[in-house]
């Protein structure tokens, strides 16, 4: 079940990575090696086993509904590439 170049393009796009087909082709080799490991796992008879999402048997780690400290606005915005009037400024990604 080797990954195709088309799937590589899609995956790169999802991660917002700008890669040339040449770079993607090059990356296919290690990714396909990884895929082989998964194929081996998938070959195991695990139908009767519940999927495990967490390896430790811990449940219900909650916090009480209490208000705590917030960041000062200047600190919240300090690392923003662009900010104005207390708002983060981002490139518009809705089509107009």
């Amino acid at each position, binding site marked *: 079940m080797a990954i195709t170049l088309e799937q590589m393009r899609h995956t790169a796009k999802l991660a917002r990575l700008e890669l040339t087909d040449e770079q993607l082709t090059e990356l296919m080799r290690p990714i396909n090696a990884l895929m082989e490991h998964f194929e081996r796992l998938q070959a195991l008879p695990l139908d009767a086993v519940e999927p495990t999402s967490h390896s430790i048997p811990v449940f219900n*780690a909650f*916090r009480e509904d209490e208000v705590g400290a917030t960041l000062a606005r200047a600190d919240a915005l300090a690392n923003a590439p662009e900010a104005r009037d207390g708002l983060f400024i981002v490139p518009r*990604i809705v089509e107009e």
Partner: protein
Amino acid sequence: MGYIPSIGMEVHAQLLTESKMFCACPTRFGDLPNTNVCPICLGMPGVLPVPNKKAVEHVIRAALALNCQIAPVAMFYRKNYFYPDLPKGYQISQYGEVHPIGVRGFLEIEVEGARVPVRIRRVHLEEDTGKLFHYLPGESEVDFNRAGAPLMEIVTDFPPDLHSAEAAKEYLVQLRAVLTYLGVCDGKMEEGSLRCEPNISVAPEGSAQLGVKTELKNLNSFRAVVRGIEFEVERQIKILQEGGQVVQETRGWSEEGAYSFPMRTKEFEQDYRYFPEPDIVPIQITDEWLEQLRATIPELPLQKADRYRKEYGLGAIETRILTADIHTATYFEQCVALGVEPKTASNWITVELQARLNETNTDIRHSKLQPAHLADLIELLQKGVISGRIAKELFDEVFQSGETPSQIVQARGLVQISDEDALRAAARKVIAANPDVVEKYRAGKTSVMSFLVGQLMRETQGRANPQRAGEILREELD
């Protein structure tokens, strides 16, 4: 050929908590942008989300009230997408049918006087997004105050049980009632704390298949829900009648223009790549916990309506008004507890009080005319201390001032005149002042009596006992 609309409802309810879903920032709205934020809800590296127990309990209680099966183990998932309304690059949510808190429930609604169940597919918990503003071209401004606030999603089952705009509205009315009774959401559609995104399709009558659906957004009131769905149904029918095809898309509703328009929200088809949230351990919902929560579920709106009908003999319309909102029901029950006859309390609340609350856009909880005031007023009226006209005037006055009716009555001498001599004197005055009318009465036109009684009421500033006034006038005239 007729067409049958089918409507699925996706509702998002903001949960009533003090703090956000995974961090301790306040959920308060209306604060300056980006002041209720912290490293967790801003998605800074290395932070760990910890679920708010109260939000989890709110959703379990809602799922119970909606007759859902509760997952013995519920889990959070990451829903990945790039959009600046969430700073992490993913939303912590629950995944489809895999371990959401509640599945396969139903909500009863009333359609043409009959109770009908609307099946619910799932009830799940997630975090709200930030708010984007698009003031200047080429950029967006982001406020993350709302990002990470707890949000409950309630989705109806498929194929849809709802087949008209009115039925969809009724579903929303009953859902809102249940959520406000539980105290898990304030249900304010105009403020966005209860948001509804219906998906709508139409199919030719008798067709086994559903049509292509569109999803409708920006419905900020019950009125918008009805008008938006009706518009969308008609639009789709017209397309099909003209031999066209409905395009599957998300559309926005313009309440001012009363039309829907295609929206392009995300830049390309979504591929959310859900996977279990590794930073949050699963939620185990034990029977013991479930029973504790079940015990906190109050009498729900339709049960209450049934009881009011049975116990108090109230009619269908008034019970609906009284039970649509927990605070109105509480108000009514307080009046009854104060000894007011239920039918009388219902009349005053569903007619006079509702009208004043609507006119002044007042929440019943903030009404200056409290149940004790209403009970006092009704007692004064029933004991004959004040007349019906004075009672209505007093009602308005107390609604504005919050003063006690019996004190106003005493202070101003509004006590009803049943006193023979005083009424007789007033009656003679009225007779003397209206010779023409008296002439007509004596000539057999007895219908003018109501005019004379009215004059007598005026003469006594509304304080005459109208029944006694009529009797005395008749005695004086005959």
